[in-house]
């Protein structure tokens, strides 16, 4: 096999990007299962259901994660135009906003606890709020690791193709967790 063929195959990153989309489908199925479980459970009897007004912290966290999606987009655009310092700047912003989202969700949990809405609850519809946000936070954590990974890559001056590939993977996933949160939030709002 000639060297050029090997090089070409090494650069064939399409299947790996495809893997990411497939992984997103599996994540989506996980949350589809949770929300379907919620519906089945809540329709079990009339005294089930969320029965509270959701804390305002969720609105703030939604704004934060929307902003972070925006900065992620800007970072990706900067990378494509080969403006690497700008790319790093926006990635740092994304990272900070992501951590901010993380903290806000924690804060929302403390508000919920103060409202008397506990995880251990005879009305498990309310426990589901913790499950939705908790499992989503695990995804956020994974997204943050991807963001850090592409940051490290850009500081190490990885070749542009690799740099953009890493960033693209991170940004696909980050936009997904963003959309996922909006789905969960709207789902909760519709059921509150």
């Amino acid at each position, binding site marked *: *096999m000639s*060297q050029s063929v*090997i090089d070409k*195959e*090494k650069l064939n*990153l*399409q*299947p*790996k990007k*495809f*893997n*990411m989309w*497939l*992984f997103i*489908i*599996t*994540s989506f*199925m*996980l*949350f*589809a*299962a*949770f929300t*379907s*479980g919620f519906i*089945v*459970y809540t329709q*079990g009897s009339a*005294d*089930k259901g969320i029965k509270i007004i959701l804390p305002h912290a969720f609105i703030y966290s939604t704004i934060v994660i929307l902003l972070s999606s925006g900065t992620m987009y800007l970072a990706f655009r900067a990378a494509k135009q080969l403006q690497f310092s700008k790319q790093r700047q926006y990635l740092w912003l994304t990272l900070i906003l992501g951590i901010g989202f993380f903290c806000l969700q924690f804060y929302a949990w403390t508000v919920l606890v103060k409202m008397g809405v506990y*995880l*251990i*609850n*005879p*009305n*498990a519809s309310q*426990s589901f709020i913790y*499950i939705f946000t908790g*499992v989503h936070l*695990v*995804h956020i*954590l*994974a*997204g943050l*690791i*991807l963001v850090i*990974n592409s940051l490290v890559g850009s500081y190490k001056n990885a070749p542009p193709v*690799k740099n953009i590939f*890493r960033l693209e*993977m*991170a940004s696909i*996933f980050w936009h997904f967790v963003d959309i996922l949160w909006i789905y969960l939030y709207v789902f909760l709002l519709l059921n509150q």
Partner: protein
Amino acid sequence: MATALTVNNPASVHSHEEHGEHHHHETFLTKYIFSQDHKMIAKQFLITGIIMGVIAMILSVLFRIQLAYPNTAFPFLETLLGRFAPEGRLDPNFYLSLVTIHGTIMVFFVLTAGLSGTFSNLLIPLQLGARDMASPFLNMLSYWFFFTACVIMLSSFFVQKGPAGGGWTIYPPLSALPKAMPGSEMGMTLWLASMVLFVASQLMGGINYISTVLNMRTKGMDLWKMPLTIWAFFLTAILGVLSFPVLVAGVVLLIFDRSMGTSFYLSDIVLNGAVLPNEGGSPILFEHLFWFLGHPEVYIVIMPAMGIASEVMAVNSRKPIFGYHAMVYSLIGITVLSFIVWGHHMFVTGMNPFIGGVFMITTLIIAVPSAVKTFNWLATLWRGNIRFTPAMMFAIGLVSFFISGGLTGIFLGNAALDINLHDTYFVVAHFHLVMGSAAIFGMLAGVYHWFPKMFGRLMDEKLGYLHFWLTFIGAYLVFFPMHFMGLDGVPRRYYAFTEFESMKQWLSVNTFITWAAIMSALAQVAFLFNFFYSIFHGKKATQNPWNANTLEWTTPVERIHGNWPGEIPTVYRWSYDYSKPGHDQDFIPQTVPFSQTMTSNLPHDFEDDPDVEKLQSEWIKQNSQEVK
């Protein structure tokens, strides 16, 4: 999560560097242990699967002994199992653990990972013309997650209270309350930990299979030229990717109920005289989540076996598979329908009879694509030049089991009949034939057929026939009488039937079944010896020992990294050109262009391309003139 991380791992990018023949730096560790070569990973899956299968089979023989001789003490059991068989009699709780772990290992570890893991890994790159999987690193990780899951599952035999005992479906509350029974304690925790790793492994594998099929086919290999094996593996992977996350959701909630005290599944329970604080939960919720995976899971088990059988039967009948398109569409039909039939496992949960009716109809509809496949197999055999190789025998055995087990599915899918048959031995007989035996036979057909591709040697035919006949007859002797027990209302999972006057008469049948089971278990020794002996001392195989058309037989016998030494071959035709009229051989490999087979080309080969049709008709005119 792991997927998201590893996709970005530089190792997956680097692995392609090894492809060139000149820079091979393989150590024992990278070649045999942490190999990223799909053929080696396939072998790892196969051998692990075989070992797990043997363990699960021994477990089944142990509980069969209990069912046949409920009042007899066997001192060797105490020697073997210690505290689990005091005074030579199986502990009732350990009996439940045996049943649970037998089911879990067989369904998940042997027939899901062992079957898909082996043959998807081996055949997807080889039959599609790819150098490896989309992400070899992820593939390697998939095996090691599976291996760890196996170790954890087996380690539960060494904890004080024994392995999980709530049945392979782990319904709460048994699985959610550690104090409910010995099998709900540490063993259950290990079961859950093992299954989480297992699901992660299956998702990594499945993602890779789908991605490879869609992105890495060689030139000319469009979807409608793929062998049916690939179609089956592809659709199986889709099923897994869509349904396993749902099991994770159910298990996450179960873990919260178990360890944190939430009440998703628990309500109004009195345990050892104490009322539990859990309120408001619904165990039915778990059944919904479980069976949304659980039903597609049985098709995850059987579809690869169907694909293997289709390929093996076409090759050994020396005929094109009958109704290739119908075969693909029926696989797609099964894939889609399998997601809307889960309720038939729950007819007796107090389900609304109307919903029960809906699930009944969808269940009966799935019989249609299944029947299409069966008739097509029979039509493939019809007037073929059949070669009864061991692989062919097992493939035909699959069809036999699929028919006799499938027929009882029509009984069980009926919401009214199910009231009587639910949780009886009728169910046990049904699924052991239609998905247990059938899928195992598909897997064995695959092992006999592709053994030369894995190890470069052939398995012994005579031992293969011995293995086939003993197993085939043994399986029928074991499972057929169970139908009658079930019709009489004998419930499954019971430790002994000595306390029930009406069931005592079945003891003689149980004894018979146990001896049949022991016979079929002994028959596997023939296979195990044949398998491991032939790896080292079997007859050397030629490049294409079965005269098959598919691409894997164009690779060298030495099984090199990267699969093909030079360029990847181009594909010109489908894989089923066997005994084509006008051709001098009874097979035409997929790599032979139509320009080299002018004597046997048929109008429909050209897919209505007028230019090529003109060339062909001119050639025919010219040649017929020469003859004059």
